[in-house]
């Protein structure tokens, strides 16, 4: 007992092996050159059923807009479906998913895998048609607690995007829960 609260010991499922990979580069992904059509598809999907803002799909209009050319919205994903690195050599899992196995470490057993938090910072530099984007991924934190669904492992996956000029575009900390 500490004061009026009860301290409950939680049996950790985070192994020393798992702790050893915190902060290490887990995955490096390079996009194919972004196309205007990739950007159009993205905004049409996100804004459905509304018409997306014109600066994201009309190149002529975009030239007169503050960005000066067609640009991707800040949330655009340049890696969906296929990338040259890693090369597509078989059916792909969702690129938002991850596993410690990517660094040769056994992941914990779990039956569900959900995203609980997304925190993104942007440089103000936009992705544009022709850009080749590199994404670096690492696990940056583990946290465990008992929840409604039993023992829950919170894992922060940090993704950093840069362009072909090595300009930082954005960084995202995604917190996943496994239980």
């Amino acid at each position, binding site marked *: 007992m500490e004061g009026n609260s009860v301290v409950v010991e939680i049996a950790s499922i985070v192994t020393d092996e798992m702790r050893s990979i915190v902060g290490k580069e887990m995955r490096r992904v390079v996009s194919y050159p972004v196309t205007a059509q990739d950007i159009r*598809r993205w905004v049409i999907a996100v804004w459905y059923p509304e018409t997306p803002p014109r*600066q994201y799909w009309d190149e002529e209009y975009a030239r007169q807009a503050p960005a000066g050319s067609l640009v991707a919205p800040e949330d655009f994903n340049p890696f969906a479906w296929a990338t040259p690195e890693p090369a597509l050599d078989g059916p792909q899992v969702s690129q938002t998913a991850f596993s410690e196995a990517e660094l040769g470490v056994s992941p914990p057993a779990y039956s569900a895998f*959900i995203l*609980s938090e*997304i925190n993104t910072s*942007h440089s*103000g530099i936009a992705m544009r048609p022709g850009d080749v984007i590199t994404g670096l991924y690492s696990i940056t934190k583990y946290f465990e607690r008992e929840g*409604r669904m039993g023992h829950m492992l919170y894992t922060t996956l940090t993704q950093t995007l840069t362009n072909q000029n090595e300009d930082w575009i954005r960084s995202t900390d995604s917190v996943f829960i496994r239980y």
Partner: protein
Amino acid sequence: MVQLEDISVGDELPELQRPGSVRHWSRFAAVNYEFADHHWDDEVAQAEGFPGAFAMAPLLQSLVYATLRSWLGEGGSIQEVNIRLRSPFLKDRQLTCRGKVTAIEKQDDGTLVTLDIEQTDDQDIQVATGTAIVVLQT
């Protein structure tokens, strides 16, 4: 397009609403490679402890960007978006995205506008909460 001189603490952004429909989710799945079964199959979602199939978290995040961009117009830039998912956004419900200005801070290279973000469904269930920072040139 919002003008800096028109923004005050307490201002509420125009609401953005979206139905929880497979028509929308399938379009997002197609551009984000987002095919986990719990977004499509009620039984899978229920086996994971949810009431039924639910929307993808990255789509909810993208709808925060859409809410901000609808308000900003073509100017300004989005510097931060942080969201915490509180409850699943279930199929056939209606999502409302809201934003409220909480701080305005003038800096040398622009003015930072901080906002609280909230998404609720048509049963007044809080789906997501968060904060955002946008930068407007002075």
